[in-house]
């Protein structure tokens, strides 16, 4: 498993819907063990990029490799040995509405490892649900009985069911209140550190970017125009990047991050690596 220092490698990706080109010669590598934030204006194809990587969207051209296996050469439902190594959290959670949360978590387990006993399955589902920060009694609830934030956590529990190495999150904090969003960010970071996950995170949430992302990829002009830490991105002079990070919301998130790191400076040396924010 040494060869995949880049769990996801995308090169020359082209996606087109009718006349509209969404991606044109897009190239992006995701490093092992990082949280990669993907940002871009509405309609720049962030979700399409994710769908391409997980094989739900057939690109017109280009190569996508996940764990060294080509996604683009495989049929949509072909068994290519990577589906048990990733977990996906869709925007709305995409929980199966006729199953309880616990049964939702069991679906991938039963699919890939039918030999697991009932008792073990039950226990796994239970601790995954709790690992995702849901109360224990949520396991036997149906998705319709959960709030939006709880649905996302339940979706995360299902995404984590197989102990994946790679986690895709599509706007995980959208629609959550700031406290819930901050908790979700924290959870993502904790899980990444505990389980050694690589996280591909689509977001609009500047706080998320500042708080937990190791690198940020910016989608614009049908390409990834820049990848790097936020200070590196701020050093570029692309107008969209400047607008994005130094607009009023960007500055607010920056200031919050600066306050946070000041407070954490003494206790947590990790905060030193983070951008301290400039002049905000």
């Amino acid at each position: 498993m040494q060869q995949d220092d880049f769990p996801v490698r995308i090169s020359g990706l082209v996606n087109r819907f009718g006349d509209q080109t969404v991606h044109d010669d897009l190239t992006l590598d995701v490093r092992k063990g990082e949280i990669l934030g993907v940002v871009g204006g509405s309609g720049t194809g962030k979700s399409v990029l994710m769908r391409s990587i997980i094989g739900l969207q057939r690109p017109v051209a280009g190569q996508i490799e996940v764990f060294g296996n080509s996604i683009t050469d495989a049929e949509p439902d072909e068994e290519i040995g990577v589906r048990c190594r990733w977990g996906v959290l869709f925007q709305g959670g995409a929980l199966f509405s006729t199953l309880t949360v616990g049964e939702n978590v069991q679906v991938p387990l039963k699919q890939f490892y039918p030999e697991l006993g009932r008792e073990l399955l039950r226990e796994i589902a239970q601790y995954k649900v709790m690992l995702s920060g849901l109360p224990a009694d949520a396991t036997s609830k149906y998705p319709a009985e959960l709030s939006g934030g709880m649905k996302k956590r339940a979706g995360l529990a299902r995404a984590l069911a197989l102990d994946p190495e790679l986690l895709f999150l599509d706007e995980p904090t959208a629609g959550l209140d700031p406290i819930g969003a901050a908790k979700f960010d924290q959870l993502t970071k904790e899980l990444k550190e505990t389980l050694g996950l690589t996280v591909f995170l689509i977001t609009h949430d500047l706080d998320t970017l500042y708080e937990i992302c190791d690198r940020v990829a910016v989608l614009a002009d049908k390409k990834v125009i820049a990848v790097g830490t936020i200070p590196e991105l701020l050093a570029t002079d692309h107008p969209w990047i400047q607008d994005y990070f130094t607009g009023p919301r960007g500055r607010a998130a920056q200031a919050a991050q600066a306050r946070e790191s000041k407070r954490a400076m003494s206790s947590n040396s990790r905060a030193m690596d983070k951008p301290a924010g400039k002049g905000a």
Partner: protein
Amino acid sequence: MSDGAQFSLEDDATGGFRLVLSGPYLVSTIGGLNQQLRAIADPVSVIDLSQVTAIDTVGAWSACSLAARHGASIEGADERSQRLLDAVQMRDSSGDIQRKEAPFWQRIPSHVGGLTRNLLLGIAGVVGFLGQIILAAGTLIRHPGRFRGKALIRQLELVGVSALPIVGLMSFLIGIVIAQQGAVQLAQFGAETLTVNLVGRITLRELGVLMTAIMVAGRSGSAFAAQIGTMRLTEEVDAMRTIGISPIEALVMPRILASVLMMPLLGFYSAVVAIVGGAVIGDLALGVPFWTFLERIKDVVPVHDLWVGLIKAPVFGLIIGLAGCYQGMQVKGDSEQVGKRTTEAVVSAIFMVIVVDAFFAVFFTEIGWG
């Protein structure tokens, strides 16, 4: 099994056993082993993880729960295992995945009770819904400007015009079947000529309207329920209310009016096409010329048969529209409800149509329109 997960028990001479786990303890490798681990009856005092080559949360969980059951301690965990052990321990896993179900002798009566209650509530609900519609109709009569003409015309097209081909085909075939089968049976009494009476009277009185009602319930009643139900789910109905548009006026009235207005027309059309079908088979198989068949219809079918059909049709239309819209408006929660309510709309509409038809049959016979 050399590269699979394994375990061995070693007596550590203090009365307890040392459980040495080795190999990969992953969700993919632990399947069969877990049963054996659970079956260990000897007292385990130490669980040794030092020979575990790879571990994930499932492996960590197994070790943890084993340790908790035997009161054993865990040794030899490397940094990663320790992190995972910390993450999964202290998680209470006693909860249930499935809903607790009552034993069946309680479930059956409670199910029957629930159905009865739903039936009664459903009747009350439909009556209430009908009341809302009558109120809305009153409002629309007082404020004709609020009437949604465009929506009505659209629904008239969907319910009526676009149903013409399928209703026509169905009726034509039914006409053929009645004429052909009727002729065979009547021939036993030497009364083939009565085939004309049979086809004319049964299609105008009963089958034309009844079969059309079933078709409209399947085509349009289900569409009403699914459309309105989906709009409920996407909160379009709520959005309408907040803007001050009454969903009853905007969504329900056009649909119910469309089915009430279109049913008599479709029913009549259906009867006519069925008679044509009968005439065709009369011409081909029974030796009654096509035009003679139609001429005879005028003589043998009393005009009140037409009225019977035409009076029943709008009532059936009301039932279908009411069932569809009512079930649609009842959708809440998840998308599964839409399917359930749509089925419910079609089944209840067809059932009620047939029940009401039976009442009509007795009624019209009693008043001498037999």
